[in-house]
């Protein structure tokens, strides 16, 4: 049996390229495409290095097209890597045997693992045969997990007749039934209401902590990651942009504040004085209009800067808040603020890009 710090998942220089052809425009283009195609490679993963140890809960985030799902597919052996090596439980991911697959589970938020036409309980019984789950363990887990997720009354209803949230909870039960050591979750809370999301996060945290399940979670929802994971991996254009403790990021966040000032647009502003004030406190202007000023500043400089703002501006309203984690992640995408220790050596400087926050 494996040690407490065993590496259960490892990727070394993993590349994945997909081949597609350029679609030319117009009727001539359509005919041209039919006769001759200009093939090109799409790089989905451009050399990913990653190690996950037993019991870790890792959040994998990135903008759309960053390569999160492709990485999950390569790591679980659904698709082979074009270059590099992906290993699961010490074995090539694309050549997993049944013994390794029994230790693994995958939950896809956008694809049902269970059988659509069957009640979840019947699907679970099918999974019992697939994974050779002993009857007593099966009964106990179905009971425990359905209670934890508050769906014990829905086990006999056809899956297609359940709500999205109930379906996802059933998916989770199905995924954890065979007591997997490593679970990949791809957007498990997508489209769910707040209560369902919260229940699912609690379920994951509890199983992760109590049972020592290694969890790799991809999500667009930072709350999912913050509440479930200890470690964060940020992917951008097929490369690891950040790999480190979530706490470290949180610490960086806790030292920064966002100030939003509403000013009287009819009162004149001494621009030079304002610029000097902001510069003296190492502030950064995030947004500026006739009546709004948004700044980012270190927590220590906050009291003095606020006093100064009241002197320089005709303040109507002022609000201070902690910088949200999303904003810091946006910085990471732009190539700034990546902690040196977390920046992979092989990673080139990432040019400024600035995706919308909703993409993160």
């Amino acid at each position, binding site marked *: *049996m494996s040690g407490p710090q065993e590496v259960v998942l490892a990727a070394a220089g993993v590349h994945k390229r*997909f081949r597609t052809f350029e679609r030319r425009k117009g009727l001539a283009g359509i005919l041209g495409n039919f006769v001759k195609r200009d093939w090109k490679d799409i790089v989905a993963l451009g050399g990913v290095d990653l190690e996950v140890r037993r019991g870790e809960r890792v959040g994998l985030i990135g903008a759309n097209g960053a390569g999160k*799902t492709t990485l*999950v*597919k390569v790591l*679980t*052996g*659904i*698709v*082979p890597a074009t270059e590099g090596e992906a290993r699961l439980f010490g074995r090539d991911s694309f050549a997993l045997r*049944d*013994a390794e*697959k*029994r*230790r*693994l*589970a*995958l939950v*896809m938020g*956008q*694809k*049902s*693992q269970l*059988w659509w*036409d*069957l009640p979840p309980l*019947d699907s679970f*019984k*099918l999974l019992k*045969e*697939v*994974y*050779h789950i002993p009857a007593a363990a099966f009964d106990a887990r179905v009971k425990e997990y359905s209670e934890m997720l508050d769906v014990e009354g829905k086990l006999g209803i056809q899956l297609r007749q359940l709500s999205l949230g109930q379906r996802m909870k059933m998916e989770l039960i199905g995924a954890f039934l*065979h*007591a*997997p*050591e490593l679970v990949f979750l*791809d957007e498990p809370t997508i489209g769910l209401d707040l209560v369902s999301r919260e229940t699912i996060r609690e379920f994951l945290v509890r*199983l992760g902590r109590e*049972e*020592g*399940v290694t969890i790799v979670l991809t999500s667009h929802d930072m709350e999912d990651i913050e509440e479930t994971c200890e470690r964060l991996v940020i992917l951008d254009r097929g490369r690891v942009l950040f790999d480190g403790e979530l706490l470290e990021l949180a610490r960086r966040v806790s030292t920064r504040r966002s100030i939003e000032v509403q000013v009287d647009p009819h009162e004149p502003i001494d621009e030079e004085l304002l610029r000097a004030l902001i510069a003296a406190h190492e502030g950064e202007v995030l947004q500026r209009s006739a009546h709004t000023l948004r700044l980012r500043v270190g927590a220590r400089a906050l009291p003095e800067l606020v006093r100064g703002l009241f002197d320089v501006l005709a303040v109507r309203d002022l609000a201070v808040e902690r910088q949200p984690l999303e904003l810091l992640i946006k910085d990471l995408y732009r190539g700034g603020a990546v902690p040196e220790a977390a920046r992979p050596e092989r990673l080139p400087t990432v040019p400024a890009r600035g995706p919308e926050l909703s993409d993160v």
Partner: protein
Amino acid sequence: MMTAPAPARPFGRLLVRATAYELRKQVAFRVGFLVREVSHGIVEPLVMLWVFWALYDSAGEGAVLRGWTFPALVQYLAGLLVVRKVVFHNRALDLSTQIFEGRVTKYLVMPMDYFVLAVARFTQYTLLQLGIAVVTWCIGAALAPEHWLFPVSWGALCGALALVLLGSWCCFLLYYVLNALAFWLDVVWSLLVMAWFVVSFAGGAVMPVSQMPPALFRVLEWGFPYWAISAPIEVLMGRLGAADVVRGLAILAATAAGLEVLRRVLWRRGLARYAGVGM
């Protein structure tokens, strides 16, 4: 959460449970069940009955066309009504859709061979259609005993059944192989429809293969569709004997072996190309 290594165990129990679920799925929707499962394969023999009636009527009373009288053809069509139900139909396999839509992904991380589930589908189809075929035969025998097809012997019945089941397995493998082409092509559904038509024609669903022009018959008698559909009916009618059954079984077994090799190769190579779309 440590999992004790599960002992290696054959997939018999999974096959039985999956077959049971496939059966439940089929009968879950009553109208769908009646339209798709019960009435399937009934229309064509009835249409052909009218076509042959018109042909033989124009040829004059007591006409024999390439060794077949009209009453013999009526018996053939009665046999077709029953036998064709049991032969695996391409609509019963949705593997290509699963590949296109990425629904096959979930099975790739499970400690099982997806083929077991497909075999469960085949088993469910065969059991269900055998039951419906028996009921159909009983109703036909009760309503029109003078025109109906009665097996000439128990031996003929067993031989015909063996041919139909092995032929059905060949059809299943052929459709599986064509479905697996979805890893490469997006026109699989067209291929499946074409294949179904070719199997129907070459199997004698339009007319007995032995009634076709001799040159064509000599070609088609080496193909598995003939031994899956037309030949079993002729065995039941007593037109073919035990030696023919043995020859048919040999051709079917060789075809099944060839298709099995093709299935394994295509599946393995297809998975290497699979992109797992929609995840």
